[in-house]
């Protein structure tokens, strides 16, 4: 390829990514009349050893195919272009046992590289190096492979981004370094805001999450999702519900977890959280625990995220198309 052709290709890719890439898709999720949430079940080949990346990769492919109607890797290109620098926002706060699994992250990294993203353009992150290490991740800034480090390593943009009740600085990983974010939450009960899933995981992108737990996190959780750089860059959510927790969260309480053996994929974080909430409530009923409302922590922020002001997605079950595979 000569220099001229190279430049043409590069510019065309950037334009295409900007005009037709994940940004368009992410916005469409908010504007469509209904949203799709894919629940892909997987059984571990060896329950003792857990899941490996290869098996998760095939399930992930099927989940994204169901979500987009396209085969992998074309499905991935609906969200991510080869020119993107992709941040994978994991949830590592609860340590080993209830953090985004390394196998899932590895599977996502593999697929991103398959569509042409250089390994060094993938950054696995959460709030602090310490949190990631506690969950079993190895900190790395080696650009020959996917990098992995905490927000504390790069700091926060100095600007205050505001929406509604939220006013925060945002990690430079979102504002300066990454062009796209894939949200990789886990599915768990939360002692203050009721449920921690897609929307709540975004608290790891801001400098002051401790200020946003009043009033069961409502409207703060919804407001944070609308801070401009977050709204613009989060393109896809894949929830690690391989192990889920129905009580005692956010810390890991093994006696309140169950092997759900499922990956949940969606672009509509509100719809995903609504489904997660329902599943957790069902499990709580089964275990004869009070509902989250009775426990004083109904996750009302989910409905707020769907209201006319926020318009982040769908909260009504009638408008959520759940595909189980």
């Amino acid at each position, binding site marked *: 390829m000569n220099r001229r052709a190279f430049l043409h290709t590069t510019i065309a890719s950037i334009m295409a990514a900007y005009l037709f890439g994940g940004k368009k898709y992410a916005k469409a999720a908010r504007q469509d009349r209904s949203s799709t949430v894919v629940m892909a079940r997987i059984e571990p080949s060896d329950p003792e050893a857990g899941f490996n990346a290869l098996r998760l990769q095939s399930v992930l492919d099927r989940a994204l195919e169901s979500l987009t109607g396209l085969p992998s890797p074309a499905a991935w290109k609906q969200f991510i272009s080869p020119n993107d620098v992709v941040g994978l926002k994991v949830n590592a*706060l*609860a*340590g080993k046992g209830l953090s985004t699994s390394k196998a899932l992250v590895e599977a996502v990294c593999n697929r991103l590289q398959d569509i042409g993203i250089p390994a060094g353009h993938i950054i696995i992150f959460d709030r*602090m190096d310490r949190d990631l290490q506690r969950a079993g991740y190895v900190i790395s800034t080696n650009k020959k492979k996917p990098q992995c480090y905490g927000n*504390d*390593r790069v*700091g*926060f943009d*100095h600007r*205050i981004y*505001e929406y509604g009740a939220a*006013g925060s600085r945002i990690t430079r990983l979102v504002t300066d370094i990454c062009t796209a974010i894939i949200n990789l939450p886990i599915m768990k009960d939360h*002692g*203050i805001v009721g449920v921690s899933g897609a929307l709540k995981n975004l608290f790891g992108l801001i*400098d*002051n999450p*401790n*200020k946003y*737990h*009043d009033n069961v996190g409502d409207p703060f959780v919804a407001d944070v999702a609308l801070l401009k750089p977050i709204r613009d860059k989060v393109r896809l959510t894949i929830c690690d519900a391989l192990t889920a927790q129905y009580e*005692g*969260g*956010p*810390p890991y*309480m093994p006696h309140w977890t169950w092997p759900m053996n499922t990956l949940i994929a969606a672009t509509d974080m509100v719809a995903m959280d609504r489904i997660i909430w329902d599943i957790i409530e069902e499990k709580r009923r089964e275990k004869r625990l009070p509902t989250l409302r009775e426990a004083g922590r109904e996750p009302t922020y989910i409905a707020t995220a769907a209201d006319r002001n926020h318009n982040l997605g769908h909260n009504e079950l009638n408008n959520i198309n759940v595909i189980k595979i």
Partner: protein
Amino acid sequence: MSVSRRKFIQCSCGVGCLYMSGLTGSLLAKLPGQNREQLIEARYYEKLPHRKIRCLLCPRECVIDDLERGYCGVRENRGGTYYSLVYGKPVSMHIDPIEKKPLFHFLPGSEAFSIATVGCNVLCKFCQNWEISQARPEQVPAADEPPEKIARAAQVNRCASIAYTYNEPVIFAEYMYDIAEIANSLSVHSVMITNGYINAKPMRDLCRVLRAVKIDLKAFTERFYRELVAGELKPVLDTLILLKSEGMWTEIVYLVIPGQNDDRKELTDLSRWIMKELGPDTPVHFTRFHPMYRLTNLPSTPIATLQMARNIALDAGIHYVYTGNVPGDPGENTYCPHCRKMLIQRIGYHIVRNEIKNNQCPYCNTKIAGIWQ
């Protein structure tokens, strides 16, 4: 690791201040993000089942799960034990005139060795120091300074007092207490510059080692506290009453924000409450607001509004009422409540003249409330 311009300036300022104060040892080799963690168990909390704890330091009384932090962001539950993350971790140290706090009736013209950590237990949308008050420990470079080092530095620099200020000292109560206890043995006083949003037990404990307290009374309505502070008025009023009962020298600052807490009735209610609960000798400072942080859509306070507030308080019978953040305004001066003669003339933080002798007005011998020597 790259260091941004902002962090470079933060670090440089920190080092400069330490150099001035003689505390140059530990920060010089430090880069942003390299803060060494130092855990001290918190003193005000109770353990709950399932590794939860309830913080008992401030009226918020956060219930905190394992590996989570309280609203202040500087106290963390680790395995059911609650720790302060800011003990011995100041991020700002300066030598200020005591008038800057402002404390006008406490050793006028003296200097206060002023320190802050990160963190705050409220969220004022108009905070002037939000870059440290709203930060978490891992976000701002800090020094490693144990209490005895701070107390010694204040003594070496001939400061009459140590001021716990800039951010909210309630959230570093243990560190403040330990510094103040050592400083007292060195004849250096301690003054707390606080929002007063603290539970009674820790406040009473602190009264044993403090000499003066300045309370930022943000407004006199619960609405204001709820909407602009994320706190409550009632516990702050309770703190003021507690300080009075403990005999603590207390001054009140009221930042007057246009359209938010400058209503004539609110100011009248405030003044009457002070007269009834605290008496006429508690100084009140009505200070000027400037647009800041998340409250940039409002204008600065008109000087006439400050003067109106001052007149309302004087009419209610409060003896010492000041205007603040208006250098050169006559409301900065101290007047004898009996003969009305000017006793202390100030321009900004500078004392032009001080005529108080033996705690009295030299013209009519009226006792002037305060700590003067």
